[in-house]
């Protein structure tokens, strides 16, 4: 009998790969732990009132997250309101209306929007888009009565931040929605066309209801991205710790506050409050991710893979 003197590397290989996987898990746990530890000071000093206090005053060392949470949610809301219908329309164009070659080219172009670094959106937003808003768009919007479009048209502010966020998440929602539209079985659509429906009727009454779960999942993913987006928002949101009803007003998001103030925070309680802001943001994105994954899992089961 021949004795095999070669070492069996397989168990080692398997453990190594498992190690890679465990590092991944460890990182997630460590992020939470680190943020939790880092925000202890602020958690103890301010407690729950941290979440509801608007004051953010490094001089008197009083910190509250209300204005940044408001800014994060409002800018994300604006982004979703604009991006979801636009993405659906583009997906409709790519799947139902455009000839295949044009659809491929346009689809690639839209996906390139996702490849542009966030800081580039920021530069463009501050120097090109904000002036455009101030000169062309905001004077028009200001004619609409109500509290939302008041104040000086500065260009920067909540509205501009929301619009730029919308452009940034547009490619993500579009590409998932496009894939979902494509997954709707042709037979189902053809039967509706056969009854004499128009393209829009087929989309509204067959395609969208059929894929609604996946579309909602795509929106969750876009939402998760918008809520944590940092650089683009930091450039255009205006960096002011106040809550204002006007969309023209400057504001702040959690991510932009971190980007602007983290390296300036000299007092421990200041730094700790910033880390707690990070914890809140991490919690928010975690919640959204959990929702999105739970939802997508349900969808996958229903639509039978491919997502």
């Amino acid at each position, binding site marked *: 009998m021949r004795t095999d003197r070669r070492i069996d*590397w*397989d168990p080692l*290989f*398997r453990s190594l*790969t*498992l*190690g*890679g*996987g465990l*590092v*991944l*898990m460890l*990182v997630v746990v*460590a*992020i939470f732990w680190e*943020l939790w*530890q880092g925000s202890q000071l602020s958690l103890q000093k301010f407690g729950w009132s941290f979440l509801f206090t608007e004051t953010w005053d490094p001089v008197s060392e009083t910190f509250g997250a209300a204005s940044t949470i408001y800014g994060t949610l409002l800018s994300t809301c604006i982004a979703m309101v604009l991006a979801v219908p*636009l993405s659906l*329309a*583009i997906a*409709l164009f790519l799947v139902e*209306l*455009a000839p295949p070659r044009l659809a491929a080219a*346009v689809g690639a*172009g*839209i*996906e390139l*929007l996702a*490849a*542009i*670094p*966030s*800081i*580039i*959106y*920021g*530069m463009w937003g501050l120097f090109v888009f904000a002036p455009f808003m101030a000169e062309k768009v905001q004077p028009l919007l200001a004619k609409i009565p109500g509290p939302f479009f008041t104040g000086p048209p500065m260009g920067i502010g909540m509205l501009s931040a929301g619009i730029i966020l919308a452009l940034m998440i547009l490619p993500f929602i*579009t590409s998932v929605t496009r894939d979902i539209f494509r997954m709707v079985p042709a037979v189902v659509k053809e039967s509706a066309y056969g009854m004499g429906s*128009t*393209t829009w*009727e087929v989309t509204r*009454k067959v395609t969208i209801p059929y894929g609604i779960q996946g579309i909602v999942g795509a929106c969750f*993913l876009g939402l998760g*991205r918008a809520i*944590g987006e*940092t*650089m683009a928002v930091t*450039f255009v949101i205006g960096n002011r710790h106040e809550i204002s009803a006007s969309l023209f007003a400057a504001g702040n998001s959690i*991510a932009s506050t*971190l*980007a602007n103030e983290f390296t300036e925070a000299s007092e421990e309680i200041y730094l700790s409050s910033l*880390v707690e802001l*990070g914890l809140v*943001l*991490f919690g928010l*994105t975690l919640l*959204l*991710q959990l929702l*999105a*994954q739970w939802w997508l899992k349900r969808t996958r089961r229903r639509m039978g893979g491919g997502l």
Partner: protein
Amino acid sequence: MRGRSLAGRKLVDTLVRIASALAALLGLCVLGWILYVILSRGIGAINWEFFTELPAPPGMNGGGLANAIVGTLLITLLASLIGIPLGLLAGIYLAEFGGRSRLAESIRFCSNLLMGTPSIIVGVFVYGLIVVPLGDFSAWAGAIALAIIMLPVVARTTEEMLSLVPNSLREAALGLGTPRWRTTLQILFKAAGSGLVTGILLAVARVSGETAPLLFTALNSPFWFESLNEPIGNLTVTIFNYAMSPYADWQAKAWGASLLITLGVLGATLLARTTLWLRRK
């Protein structure tokens, strides 16, 4: 459908068609607008000095961003050296060993969570983990932050690409007595090769344009670096600082740096996407 006039239904349909075509056009216009602005404003700042000289002191004209260009390349390289092997290992585990086990599902779950974690949170995390204990911002800290962002992306692509390789190939290799590690690294990786490479390329392209995680880890520096344990100049943080500065010359340099980063990232992305696309054909 319910008794609406044919003309009315057709009108609505036409309007929707026009609206959706306009939406697509709008997306493309924004892409064109951004690219045009970066090109037209950035090109003027690019010259020989831009690539070879250190930044000039605040308010003075001239100088370049040589240290930041090298810094960005170096941080991205270090991040890749850490992130890619770990990501590959995790991906192999998920595709080849983990299956549907509870542990594998938890790793998948964490990988999705990490993918959705804002990059600035990773910056705060690495600040607390490395910068505070070591007492200084450093190239290493920046590289680790970027590696953490790459990790789930590489792991997921690896798992996806490996699971596309037909099982018969695995069975054939294992049946011939090839050890598992050799089957994976030599046979499966070869079969999944171009997909893996493009996935990794996309991950590298993505992190090379990241700014937020570098703000509190690598920081920035106007000088050449002497070791990896000190703050290091990099393009994206330089763009952030220069764009917000009041000096016209610095703002021009920020546009130049934007052009450079955009060309790099878009170029790598396009390259990766065309290879994937050619492979699918």
